[in-house]
């Protein structure tokens, strides 16, 4: 399992991998929004938590279809399915590798980009915390969506449509955590709910993803 994780991370950072794609997209969104909204810093300050979270979510979405599609196309997925590791573990490990290649760079870059959006100084810690807690759920839900659409040609659109509604709770509680933190309010409730969503997806979706993969490999 560790080897599969290391292989996926290695593949994503080598030439042609998805590493940097999400990060670049996140950078573009957060740099362009101030130009589009205009130079009123109080408006930017008000929308910063939402923009940062929406940007992180869309960046995550960008590389989801690669989670299983590449392995499906070159036959690795068949071989992994017959290998002595359970398919549930394959789904979990692949989601984890996707998070390390996509989610983790977003978490680390977000405070820097928060400056561009004039995020309240009190919000930076909460931005980091909420993204760190919330983005694993994005990767796991995405892996489930990718497992559902793995056999389809051009499944990317369907994947986005399937996954976006499932991303909404994470987005709401994630952005709410940052908004409350930036305003100096208590953040316990949204952060705990965000953590609950992440833990719930990590506990349940590997099984759902494995079941979807089994059907799609037939």
């Amino acid at each position: 399992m560790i080897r599969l994780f290391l292989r996926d991370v290695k593949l994503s950072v080598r030439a042609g991998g998805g590493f940097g794609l999400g990060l670049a997209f996140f950078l573009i969104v957060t740099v362009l929004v101030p130009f589009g909204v205009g130079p009123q810093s109080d408006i930017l300050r008000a929308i910063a938590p939402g923009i940062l979270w929406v940007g992180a979510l869309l960046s995550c979405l960008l590389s989801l279809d690669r989670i299983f599609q590449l392995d499906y196309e070159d036959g690795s997925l068949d071989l992994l399915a017959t290998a002595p590791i359970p398919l549930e573990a394959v789904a979990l490990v692949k989601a984890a590798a996707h998070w390390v290649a996509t989610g983790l760079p977003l978490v680390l870059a977000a405070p820097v980009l928060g400056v561009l959006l004039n995020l309240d100084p009190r919000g930076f810690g909460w931005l980091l915390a909420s993204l760190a807690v919330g983005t694993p759920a994005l990767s796991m839900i995405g892996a489930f969506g990718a497992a559902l659409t793995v056999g389809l040609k051009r499944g990317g659109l369907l994947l986005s449509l399937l996954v976006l509604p499932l991303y909404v709770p994470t987005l709401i509680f994630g952005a709410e955590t940052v908004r409350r933190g930036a305003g100096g309010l208590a953040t316990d409730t949204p952060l705990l709910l965000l953590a609950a969503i992440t833990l719930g997806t990590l506990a349940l979706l590997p099984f759902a993803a494995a079941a979807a993969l089994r059907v799609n490999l037939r």
Partner: protein
Amino acid sequence: MVLSVTDLAVARGGLPVLERVSFALLPGEALVLRGPNGIGKTTLLRTVAGLQPPLAGRIDTAEGAVAYGAHADGLKAVLSVEENLRFWAAIHGGADIGPALAAYDLNALRQRSAQNLSAGQKRRLGLARLLVTGRPVWALDEPTVSLDTASVALFAEAVRAHLAAGGAALIATHVDLGFPARELDLAPMRAAAGTGDAFGADFDEAFG
């Protein structure tokens, strides 16, 4: 007995393609599947490998006994020959990759990335993967595609060594492999047309 198939029926895309398939493999035995294109050789092999459930009948084999070799080799283009093979060895319990590299004459290509291999070299690497799985039954789908005669000889030698070590092989192929093997012609086992319900299995799958 390492693999026994009894009255097996298999379906592709919800339509039955083969039925009443029965055979048994003893240790040290190879069985070559023959039949025209589209008869269901790949479907049969995927079913035996556990990638899809049989429509009817039984497959008796030990858990994790079958190593599947498909049309696609499962190679990652940006990884080297050694990295590709080492990965599959680690997944299957960490066998030494040295003998597998030697058996398919890949030592000179160790550091080359898979995207720079020729089709035949990729195939050899894909077949070398079978050696690092350490599994007793090989289910191979057209293993000699794009191999030259020298490489086919390497493959025949590897299969012979595998059989001599008590393994078994189930091979779908159209060519002569150069070692003695029983043959099973699948043509008489073609599923009767019209008996299949194109929707039955799929509907159960979606709503069951």
